[in-house]
């Protein structure tokens, strides 16, 4: 081994060892755990552990709350991803305009929700969304809308949480889009303008292809992010009302750390993993077709 090689291992081994211990090993073990009936009894005594094969997975399919959690998560993702990305793109386009002044100032202000913690901001939003004293319902009342029971009505609980999540995360993609928009070739924009292309055509045929790869990356990360919602429903609704905000991770957390069915919870974790992997794969396929990759 050369001196350089020895140093390289000296530099990398500690962190690789940590990664192996807290990430690689547990991920492999999760697969093992998901085919056992590891529960509170096994937690007390290993000899109670039994191999159940795909039993956990077939059990899940027969659990209504699991399907509910899958469905809720799907709704969160299907509405939330376009909502979050749309808001980010809209503000990025707004900020990108040459006539807008004090850009760094706006950028910092709009990014502020992203750096703050979920728990504290969820507490604030729960208060803003309060049916009787909440600021949002008061503002809606000013324009004649009857009070909405945001967090108490199963029809409104997901939109309410999405409002909060969008507020919280849009700043991140906004920054990323700002960078991509700055790289849109100015000559191309000018040429399109001279050809008489309107704002929408210019956006569709000049801006969009140029920011395509960034948009794709944002979509992949957002889908993964929305599939991993947990803290928001945990702090704001405890999964309610009538289980309308139980997400996959919320279900996993309850199954694992409330009821101590760690085998079953591991199976849920794997379903989540497979979902994220396959959606990422599909998105990269679509991206390839449009030559964004």
């Amino acid at each position, binding site marked *: 081994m050369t001196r350089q090689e020895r140093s390289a291992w000296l530099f990398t081994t500690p*962190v690789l060892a940590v990664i192996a211990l*807290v990430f690689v090993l547990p991920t492999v073990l999760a697969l093992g755990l998901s085919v056992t009936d590891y529960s509170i009894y096994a937690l007390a005594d290993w000899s109670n552990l039994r191999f159940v094969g795909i039993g956990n997975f077939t059990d899940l399919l027969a659990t209504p709350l699991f399907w509910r959690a899958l469905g809720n998560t799907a709704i969160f993702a299907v509405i939330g991803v376009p909502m979050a990305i749309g808001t980010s793109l809209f503000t990025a386009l707004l900020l990108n305009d040459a006539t807008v002044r004090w850009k760094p100032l706006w*950028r910092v202000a709009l990014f502020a929700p992203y*750096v*703050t913690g*979920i728990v504290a901001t969820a*507490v604030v939003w729960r208060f803003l969304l309060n049916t009787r*004293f909440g600021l949002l319902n008061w503002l809606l009342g000013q324009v004649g809308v009857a009070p909405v029971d945001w967090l108490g009505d199963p029809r409104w609980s997901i939109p309410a949480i999405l409002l909060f999540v969008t507020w919280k995360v849009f700043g991140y993609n906004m920054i990323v889009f*700002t960078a991509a928009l700055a790289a849109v070739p100015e000559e191309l924009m000018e040429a399109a303008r001279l050809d008489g292309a309107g704002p929408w055509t210019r956006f569709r045929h000049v801006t969009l292809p140029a920011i395509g790869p960034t948009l794709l990356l944002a979509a992949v990360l957002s889908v993964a992010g929305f599939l991993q919602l947990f*803290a928001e429903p945990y702090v704001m609704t405890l999964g309610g009302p009538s289980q309308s905000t139980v997400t996959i991770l919320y279900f996993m957390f309850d199954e694992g750390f409330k009821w101590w069915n760690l085998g079953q919870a591991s199976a849920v974790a794997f379903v989540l993993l497979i979902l994220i992997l396959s959606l990422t794969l599909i998105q990269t396929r679509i991206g390839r077709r449009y030559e964004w990759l």
Partner: protein
Amino acid sequence: MALNPRRLRAIVLNAAVACVTLVTLLPFVWMVIVSFMPRYESSRYPPPLWPSRWTLGNYYELLVRRQYDGAWFDYRILPAMGNSLLVAAISTLLGLLLTVPAGYAFAKLHFRGRERLLKMLIASLVIPGQVAMLPLFLIFRELGLVDSYAGVILPSLAGIFAILFVRQATLGIPDEMIDAARLDGAGETRIFVSIVLPLLMPITVTLALFLFLGSWNDFLWPLIVLSDQHHYTLPVAVAAISREHAADGELMMAAAVVTTLPVLALFLALQRYYIGGLLGGSIKG
């Protein structure tokens, strides 16, 4: 002053940006205003937009230890803040110590298996960390790390993203510089410490900020691994009291202020590094 189309456009767009920003910041402004209201004032309709009188009562109630009927009582927010600070500081320091040299090695040092390891690291980014959490809990239980600060900190040190982040920044350092030092007989550690590290300083500050805020805001894992409320970090403590005091708007807003204020202050002070880090140095301003 003529109102030509360009000027009109500028006014409309600047106003639109200002409106969006105002709406975005409104929850923070409201949080601060309500936290200074006398108890129960916010639970009225229409909501008062300004405190009838400004009071520090909510902060006093939240932060100061008091004696009731001979027993001490407090919401344990200050101790939780201390815990969060300790955990975040150690996570950040150890995280930098582990990942910065590794990121440099992956960029500039040649060793067998480097490319394969790198590919594995990149691939593992798509695996959600929650998959590892259940077995990790069992492993930590065997190791006696449950309900300890080490149990909170250790998983945060597996900085795959951090390694790749440092590597990306290091690729920009010219090889000639490092080779020249090698010819002069400098050892690899010496080269890293006295040549590479100073050049990586801005990126290290950025990474430190990412690590610190990530640890300060982390919720799910501390919630799982900590059971004794004396060990709670700030988000876990706030979530716990918000369950019992959901109706106490003013108290909860004070708790939210105390939790978000340090983060916002740190972000404002170092926002150049933070936003610059997100953009990978592609934009200035």
